[in-house]
């Protein structure tokens, strides 16, 4: 009898967060921009790519992966804005008090929000990236690039790209939870993925210190870039200054991003639990 009466469940909280995410216009717009950027930039690249003469197999696959993931520099910003807004929008409007009254233990609400947002971002990113790859493959074929759609090495970075977008979105979400303010949250995450790498790389060039160059690899955006790089072009992509920094393997890059997200999400959880709403 008691089991049939409504009560708090994690499944219910997930469902609640799904309803919240899909019932806001900002969600629709951000994901629309994400899909448009991914497909649009990818096709633009594929259609306008002018051959560089004879290319070896790995170079061809590198360009193919780049076409499908070309938008990431920009689409990660869109995902970060949405990730921060998912929680700061609740603080800004006061909705957070309704959320935390319904889920007074708080942490399940945070977990459900992060999970739903990460899952939706992953699926939409993956679908649009794969779609871009499938449409651009015939276009690239006309420009001297034969995409090996049967190769796992080509598909893995595409999955990695979607995974990176989901993770960087949750990182933005965590910062939003910590800062509790839309403008502040967005500024913090954009600072972390745009400004900090620039400062560190300038520092690396000035000092020519190897440890600074290595440290760059552990910033979330740089480590994340390893998740969607075609493996054989690894060294070139990560060490543009020729500082002999050791590049991370894609799986190591993924672990570094996961560590960033985990640390910030734990901090967000501790603060959410402790602070007055």
């Amino acid at each position: 009898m008691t089991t049939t009466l409504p009560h708090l469940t994690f499944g219910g909280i997930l469902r609640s967060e799904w309803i919240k995410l899909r019932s806001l216009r900002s969600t629709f717009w951000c994901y629309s921009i994400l899909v448009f950027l991914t497909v649009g930039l990818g096709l633009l690249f594929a259609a306008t790519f002018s051959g560089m003469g004879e290319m070896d197999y790995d170079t061809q696959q590198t360009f193919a992966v780049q076409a499908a993931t070309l938008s990431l520099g920009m689409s990660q910003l869109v995902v970060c804005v949405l990730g921060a807004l998912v929680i700061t929008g609740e603080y800004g409007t006061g909705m957070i008090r309704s959320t935390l009254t319904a889920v007074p233990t708080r942490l399940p609400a945070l977990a459900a929000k992060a999970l739903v947002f990460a899952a939706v971002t992953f699926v939409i990113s993956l679908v649009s990236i794969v779609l871009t790859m499938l449409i651009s493959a015939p276009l690239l074929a006309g420009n001297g690039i034969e995409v090996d759609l049967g190769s796992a090495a080509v598909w893995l970075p595409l999955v990695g790209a979607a995974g990176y977008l989901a993770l960087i979105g949750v990182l933005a979400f965590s910062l939003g939870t910590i800062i509790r303010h839309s403008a502040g949250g967005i500024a913090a995450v954009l600072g972390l993925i745009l400004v900090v790498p620039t400062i560190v790389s300038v520092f690396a060039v000035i000092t020519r210190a190897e440890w600074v160059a290595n440290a760059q690899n552990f910033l979330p955006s740089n480590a994340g870039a390893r998740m969607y790089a075609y493996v054989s072009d690894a060294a070139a992509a990560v060490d543009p200054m020729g500082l002999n920094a050791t590049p991370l393997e894609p799986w190591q890059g993924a672990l570094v991003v996961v560590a960033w997200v985990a640390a910030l999400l734990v901090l967000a959880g501790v603060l959410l639990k402790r602070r007055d709403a």
Partner: protein
Amino acid sequence: MIEAVGLSKHYGAKKAVDDISFSVKPGAVTGFLGPNGAGKSTTMRMIVGLDRPSAGTVTVNGKPYAEHKAPLREVGALLDAKAVHTGRSAVNHLLAIGATHGIGRKRVDEVIALTGLQSVARKRVGGFSLGMGQRLGLAVALLGDPRTLVLDEPVNGLDPEGVIWVRTLARHLASEGRTVLLSSHLMSEMAQTADHIIVLGRGRVVADASVAEILAKASGNAVTVRTPDAERFASLLTSPEVTVTATEPGLLVVAGLPAARIGELAAAERVVLHELTPVAGNLESAYLQLTQDDVEYRAGGAPEGAAQ
């Protein structure tokens, strides 16, 4: 049943709620009354765990709110009509909150009908009037069909029809055996709704009694007396049991003597009276008496004690 024991909330050196204990019983409407800044809202926020007490505990039906398996079925709270994402429609807001407890479309439609929100349920909440927002807040509070209701200023922003509706609803919910705690800074509002009143002033419980008891205390039966000979008459009337307050030249407010006795004294002393009006003991004056020392934000103007 809500029980607070030694409940305190400090913000730095400021004591918003200072060691209060009270209980709110089922089957009755309890009014939470006090001037702005008395600690009503903070106390209500601590009941549902939004604010963490600096000291003391508050439980609902025997447990802290957060420890219940179905919090929304224990307490329906309206703390702030603004606790809504302005970009979402009313129906989606209710569906999202209900979903946490597996409360579905059917109950959402019920509370929308109950609160009269049918015509705006699909509109975005950002465009709602204060009254509509208040109705949506009440709809959220009722969503879980809760045993306890905690409503902070529920009639704020409602039209007269809405005010009567909330009053009737509160009385109805209490008659079903539920616990109803509602706050107001208006005594007149409480007088018409509550059975029991807890008065807060500066974070402390100033009074905790039934409406009848508070009325009885207030009926020190003040009488207004208008006379050209106010000064002399005031000194004649004043005694340890009687307080006389001169509110303006020629006008006295006398507490502690019935009007008939004042009239007899005036006749005996040959004092001319222009007016002799018993002021019915009302909750408003009782409330003012109870909280006069506890008003935190006093209107500017007369310095303290000048009127005495």
